[in-house]
């Protein structure tokens, strides 16, 4: 005899404000199969859960319906609760009477009627539930980190320290990412290279980390615990084993004047180059577009001068397929292209630069050896204007969001200008000053008090150039909204704090590895508050700015968190998976095979079935042995999408947890 227990939750007032919980519980008593029904203020709380367990014992309930918030919130909680109450965790159904009822309706009677229907559907379904044994899949003990910036390096180090092997894939010739381009970091003014390079060296020397430079992830198949990843190792034309990193080839390479991406096109590099002195791995690569040999067929100077004979022009892209248990995505960010801002004259005025270009100017290993110089005529600027929120908080031409880190790095830049250039002026045009981190406010105040940075509250409307050569000035036309006056500044150089954006190919990349992304193309976390480093695709984790704009402290913290999640996953030999898998009723299956091509995980295959068949005297009392083909579902591969069940005309395939009977029971329950 099936005995259902219905438990209606008030969720404080969230549900009870527009649903009569008492009436709902009373009405549930009259439903067929319901042996017990009650309501309580907080069903998910400890007293609430103990009430359920007691009710199960007392009334001999064998299946439970909880009418509360969305199953996406507490389905696992209540499954564990009835599990410890002695029932199979899958003898449970949840009626979502909060997000899809009390919160979206205001008419109390109609909402209560709808809640009654939802409970009715849940009870009808739970009467058809069966006990489902959970199944296990093997977990491959190897992790993949995509993106070699500080996020990727930190995640890789933290995973490797726990003993699991990590592959760190980086698209550029060297790991280090944006942080390698930065000079100092806030709020401590540490030199960025000094705190980054040791971590890069640790990563390169760590026995459990393999750095795969100059490579990109091509394809990801499989699922949590068993990702089959294809990686394309781009042709670098330099044999990384033979090469000693002496740099002779870069010195002798004839085509030198190629704008260096690492230097934000302020400096130049040869055709065979490694991006920066502390590059890891410090092995050069050949830039095919600008290499004279590839363009004209004549040159090969680098091959000739190379003592280790490491240059090989016939090098081809190479595909590598590796299996991983977990993936950390740390692909980082890029900067907003401020040529959208015609009024700031980017592209016309050489001295209007972005924050990253300023970092290169002020960096000791940068194109100007650390001396802040105007890109137009290499003179030292006296009045430097900084403009914040270029592309951020801008619905018209940029992004709605705030990029979090610009307030701090602009304060840092302004402090460095005042510090490095004698009797200079640093003027920051701002709308708000956002200093949310530890010692951030103090860092900003120090810039104002000790270094005399000037803050003008208002957005700049326009920048235009006046004068020629030496006394060429950039006239910055802004407003001080606190004074209510228009403000003009004759600036020598203007630094724009441009918005942080995801990588240009972020959307395509997300689809390639199977995670979702938001309307700004940042990757979507499973839950903004409670699961910030996980994604909805089990086994894939996020770290750093690819999930949203953030500064280095938050990035490193997220990298550690992602690593912890990966290790938690890899520490299990087997992973318990949801028993929501397809099941074949071999008696009905005619072996037509229509279901096989439907499955995206190739979980269905033919197997042979031998059975005794009765039915005719000739076959004698023991019948005849017959062999036939039937479909068979591999529980390990099946992810429970149910697409195959619809294709099965014989109705032999069904999805446990969402069987045809259960769904039809829900449909019928309302009439």
């Amino acid at each position, binding site marked *: 005899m099936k005995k259902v227990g219905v438990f209606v939750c008030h969720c404080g007032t969230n549900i009870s404000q527009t649903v009569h919980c008492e009436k709902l519980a009373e009405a549930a008593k009259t439903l067929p199969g319901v042996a017990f029904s009650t309501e309580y203020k907080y069903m998910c709380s400890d007293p609430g859960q103990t009430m359920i367990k007691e009710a199960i014992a007392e009334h001999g309930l064998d299946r439970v319906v909880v009418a509360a918030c969305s199953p996406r919130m507490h389905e696992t909680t209540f499954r564990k609760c009835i599990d410890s109450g002695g029932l199979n965790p899958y003898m449970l159904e949840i009626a979502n009477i909060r997000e899809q009822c009390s919160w979206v309706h205001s008419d109390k009677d109609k909402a209560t009627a709808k809640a009654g229907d939802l409970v009715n559907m849940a009870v009808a379904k739970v009467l058809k539930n069966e006990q489902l044994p959970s199944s296990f899949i093997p977990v491959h003990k190897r992790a993949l980190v995509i993106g070699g910036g500080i996020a990727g390096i930190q995640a890789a180090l933290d995973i490797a320290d726990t003993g699991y092997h990590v592959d760190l894939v980086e698209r550029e010739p060297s790991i280090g990412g944006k942080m390698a381009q930065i000079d100092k970091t806030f709020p401590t003014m540490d030199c960025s290279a000094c705190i980054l390079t040791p971590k890069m060296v640790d990563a390169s020397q760590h026995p459990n980390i393999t750095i795969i430079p100059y490579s990109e992830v091509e394809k990801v198949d499989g699922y949590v615990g068993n990702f089959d990843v294809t990686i394309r190792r781009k042709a670098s034309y330099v044999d990384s084993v033979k090469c000693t990193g002496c740099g002779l080839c870069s010195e002798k390479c004839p085509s030198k004047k190629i704008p260096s991406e690492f230097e934000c096109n302020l400096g130049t590099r040869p055709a065979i180059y490694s991006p920066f002195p502390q590059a890891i791995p410090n092995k050069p690569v050949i830039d095919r577009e600008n290499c004279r040999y590839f363009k004209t067929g004549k040159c090969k100077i680098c091959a000739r001068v190379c003592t280790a004979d490491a240059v090989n022009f016939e090098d081809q892209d190479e595909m590598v397929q590796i299996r991983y248990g977990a993936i950390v995505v740390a692909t980082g960010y890029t900067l907003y292209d401020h040529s959208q801002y015609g009024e700031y004259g980017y592209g016309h005025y050489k001295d209007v630069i972005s924050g990253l270009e300023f970092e290169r100017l002020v960096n000791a290993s940068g194109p100007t050896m650390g001396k802040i110089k105007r890109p137009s005529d290499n003179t030292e600027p006296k009045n430097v204007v900084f403009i914040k929120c270029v592309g951020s908080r801008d619905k018209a031409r940029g992004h709605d969001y705030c990029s979090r880190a610009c307030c701090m790095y602009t304060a840092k830049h302004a402090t460095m200008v005042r510090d490095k250039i004698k009797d200079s002026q640093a003027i920051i045009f701002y709308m708000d000053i956002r200093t949310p981190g530890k010692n951030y406010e103090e860092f900003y105040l120090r810039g104002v008090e000790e270094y005399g940075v000037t803050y003008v509250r208002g957005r700049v409307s326009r920048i235009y150039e006046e004068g020629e050569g030496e006394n060429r000035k950039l006239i910055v036309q802004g407003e001080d909204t606190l004074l209510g006056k228009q403000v003009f500044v004759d600036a020598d150089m203007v630094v724009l704090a441009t918005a942080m954006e995801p990588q240009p190919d972020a959307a395509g990349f997300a689809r390639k590895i199977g995670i979702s992304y938001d309307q700004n193309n940042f990757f979507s976390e499973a839950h903004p508050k409670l699961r910030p480093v996980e994604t909805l695709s089990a086994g894939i984790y996020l770290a750093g700015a690819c999930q949203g704009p953030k500064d280095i402290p938050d990035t490193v913290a997220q990298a550690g968190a992602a690593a912890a999640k990966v290790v938690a996953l890899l520490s299990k030999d087997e992973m318990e998976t949801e028993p929501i898998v397809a099941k074949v009723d071999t008696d009905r299956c005619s072996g037509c095979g229509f279901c096989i091509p439907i499955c*995206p995980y190739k979980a269905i295959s033919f197997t042979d079935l031998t059975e005794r068949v009765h039915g005719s005297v000739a076959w004698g009392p023991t019948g005849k042995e017959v062999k036939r083909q039937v479909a068979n579902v591999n529980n390990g591969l099946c*992810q429970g999408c149910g697409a195959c069940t619809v294709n099965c005309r014989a109705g032999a395939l069904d999805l446990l947890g969402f069987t045809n009977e259960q769904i039809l029971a829900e449909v019928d329950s309302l009439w």
Partner: protein
Amino acid sequence: MVNSLDPTCNTTPEPMTPGSTTPNPTPLEISAAELTVPQNTSAASAKDIASDWEPKILVFACQYCTYAGADLAGLSRLQYPTTTRVLRVPCSGRTNPQFVIRAFQKGFDGVLVAGCHPGDCHFTTGNYFTRRRYLLMTRLMEFIGLDPRRFRVCWISGSEGPKFQQVVTELTDTIRPLGPSQKLWDEGGISS
């Protein structure tokens, strides 16, 4: 996840599709506009529908996208009519056209099948099958005389709360003037 099966051209000829293995061109929602409204449906004239009558609409919502979108509509307290009952399925691909027919037989006045946008499906190819099956299903519903405005397929992602509200409200407003769905209604009701 797996892209092994090229979703757009499914190799086996599905019995229901008469030989069309070419990927259907329009991944967009199947909107009522594309469908021809059969002339003979006895759309009840406005006056004899009880003024406070509310249609009852069944929504097959895929767990990873549309159900999440509906939850988001709840989180943002977006109000919409109480006419819908959501039935959670793991993927829109799980929604068997027979469930839709069953819903109309039992007396639902409208059915909505909603899943992830093509390309975003958590199971990679689930919604491709939905798209293909329901493009045919709508033709069948037209053929048997059910007013196509009562049946809708669309894509609602987990971050599109407002879209869920808008689709539900729109669907209710379209179906309300059509009155109760008599066409497939089986008074006796199939014994469950």
